[in-house]
């Protein structure tokens, strides 16, 4: 998480895609961009949760810097010149999406989130029309032991939104991640079936923030899982107001 700066913040001026902006210096590039209608693609970033910087879809170029930075975890600075949509960036994003699609089994046509999936939308938005990397076709389990919800690891992109919302908003910390690298998997409690979890309150926040069909409500058939994205900004606002 980015540490909160002091209250006497300065206002800085900078450029995003050749347009002049000014913002508080404690704001991140993605915050300013989104507030001003510049849709930098992202999967793991979610307003109201801590910053994770895992998906790398929000990478941007900063003029004069030799490396790409993730816009969710980089603050704006005085004189910064940011490019959000260059051809190399588009190519990187498509590649990242192709890697995500090839890593697990994202079969959109028969997924409960078909038509309402952030990964699917991003693939369309970024013009990903083929996956050039061989699919891994690795076998992943579905845990349907919970009365209300189901986790399908085939559809998980390891964004950890579920882990963060459970810890930071609900305070239960039922979710966490297990393993390393390509073998990483989100787990409930100490890798017990979700239905046997002692810590899960059944609030469903993890399901609502999940960008794909990995966490879904029981009883949903193909294309029926609509997620409520409004509750998190609302909860955050209410908490800030207190």
């Amino acid at each position, binding site marked *: 998480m980015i540490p909160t700066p002091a209250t006497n913040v300065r206002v800085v001026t900078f450029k995003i895609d050749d347009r002049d902006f000014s913002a508080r210096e404690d704001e991140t590039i993605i915050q300013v961009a989104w507030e001003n209608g510049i849709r930098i693609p992202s999967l793991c970033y979610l307003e109201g949760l801590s910053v994770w910087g895992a998906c790398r879809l929000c990478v941007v170029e900063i003029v004069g810097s030799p490396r790409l930075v993730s816009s969710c975890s980089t603050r704006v600075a005085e004189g910064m010149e940011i490019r959000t949509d260059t051809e190399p960036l588009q190519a990187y994003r498509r590649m990242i999406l192709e890697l995500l699609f090839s890593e697990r089994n994202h079969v959109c*046509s028969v997924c409960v989130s078909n038509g309402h999936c952030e990964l699917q939308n991003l693939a369309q938005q970024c013009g990903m029309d083929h996956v050039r990397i061989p699919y891994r076709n690795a076998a992943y389990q579905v845990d349907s032991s919970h009365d209300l919800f189901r986790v399908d690891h085939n559809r998980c992109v390891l964004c950890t939104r579920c882990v963060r919302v459970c810890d930071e908003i609900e305070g239960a910390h039922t979710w966490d991640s297990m393993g390393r690298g390509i073998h990483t998997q989100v787990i409930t409690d100490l890798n017990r079936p979700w239905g046997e979890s002692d810590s899960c309150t059944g609030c469903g926040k993890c399901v609502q923030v999940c960008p794909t069909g990995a966490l879904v409500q029981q009883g949903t058939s*193909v294309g029926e899982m609509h997620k409520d994205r409004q509750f998190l900004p609302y909860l955050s606002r209410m908490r800030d107001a207190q």
Partner: protein
Amino acid sequence: MSRTIAIEPVTRIEGHARITLQLNDEGRVDDARFHLTQFRGFEKFCEGRPYREMPALTARTCGICPVSHLLTSAKACDELLSVKIPPAAEKLRRVMNLAQLLQSHALSFFHLSSPDLLLGWDSDPARRNIFGVMTENPAMAKDGIRLRQIGQSIIEMLGGKKVHPNWAVPGGIVRPLSEETREAMRKLLPEGLVIAKRTYAFYKTLIPQFAAEAETFGNFPTMFLSLVSAKGNLEHYDGWIRIKDAKGNIVEDMVPTEEYPRIIGEAVEPFTYMKFPYYKPQGYPRGIYRVGPLARLNNCNSCGTPFADVALAEFRTLQESRPVTSSFHYHYARLVEIIYALESMDRLLRDPDILATRIRARARSNRDEGIGIAEAPRGLLIHHYRIDDDGLMTWMNLIIATGHNNLAMNQGVKQVAQEYVDGSKLQEGMLNRVEAVIRCFDPCLSCASHAFGQMPMHIELRDADGHLVDQLKRG
């Protein structure tokens, strides 16, 4: 010297197949086989998935008859929920099933088979297709395309998509029917009926010239298996299994869905990916039976709609003896069913209850086993599921309409080949007749593919001079 003729690929069918003809020293056909060469694997990769995905997932088996899988799967899932679905949902499912029957039969008759019937078995193969029909008889080609469009449009109006609508779900369907959509659908039906009757009348005039084909195209005694309604009438969505023998005697009647394992067994042969279902009490391969339009018309007491019943009476005059045993008359039966589908849809859509807003029964899985049965365009379709306590699939068996006809198709291929193929002066038209007997059954091979055990395999590694270096054998 004996030799083998391979017809590959078999054209104007759904899926990939090959026919091999074994010729003896005199160039006559000794044996003939129909091979399904593609493999899908649905029964295996569905294991571990939530049962609620099954209707949409199994529908992906096929782009021609997805509605059949969608509905049969939804019916199997209704059993897992242990619910009786709301009446409006059942009626709407029936409408969609009939719309699919219409479009699939139109595809089979006009697009796939009419080139043989109109242009002739021996005509130029480059023109023997729907484009050739367009040149020869544009009005008929137009009729075929329009009829199929009507069926597909009704599917789209109900399900939101022409192909693979995610519309039927465990417990019912996803959205009720609006008055406007109902009227839009009903407006299409009169035109469809005019086309269907016109085609039927035209086809009747062609029948006399196909007497030789009717005699030899899969014309042999078998049993016939289909669903019938409580009154013994034509039925496509629900009902009970009836089996008639070749003399027209009822062998099994009013067999409920869950008893299908008592009467249907499945055999496996190494030369094809398609299983061989058979009537269990008579054993394999004696228990040969046929399904599909021919079987349905042979088995039912009546259609229950006015024009279709007239056509049914005429269908039954095709042969002196009954039931009609020539597979060539599948084409005729398809046209009768097209009329039936249009009349039945109109009847269902007139029902005011079809607009009811209660269209889905909600429950969680209450049983660990469910069987769904319906009549697909090509015959009886069975989805049989088992799930665990968490609602994940543990086992699945799909018995596909085309599979039921496998024994008969092999026998039909042999009959036609022995009649027409002369190895000493081979002509393309001879082989086309062998393919055409398969088209009578309108097989859907993408649906009917299965694997059982390991495929026998033989791999040889040869060097550049062709000498065998190493080999691997399995099976």
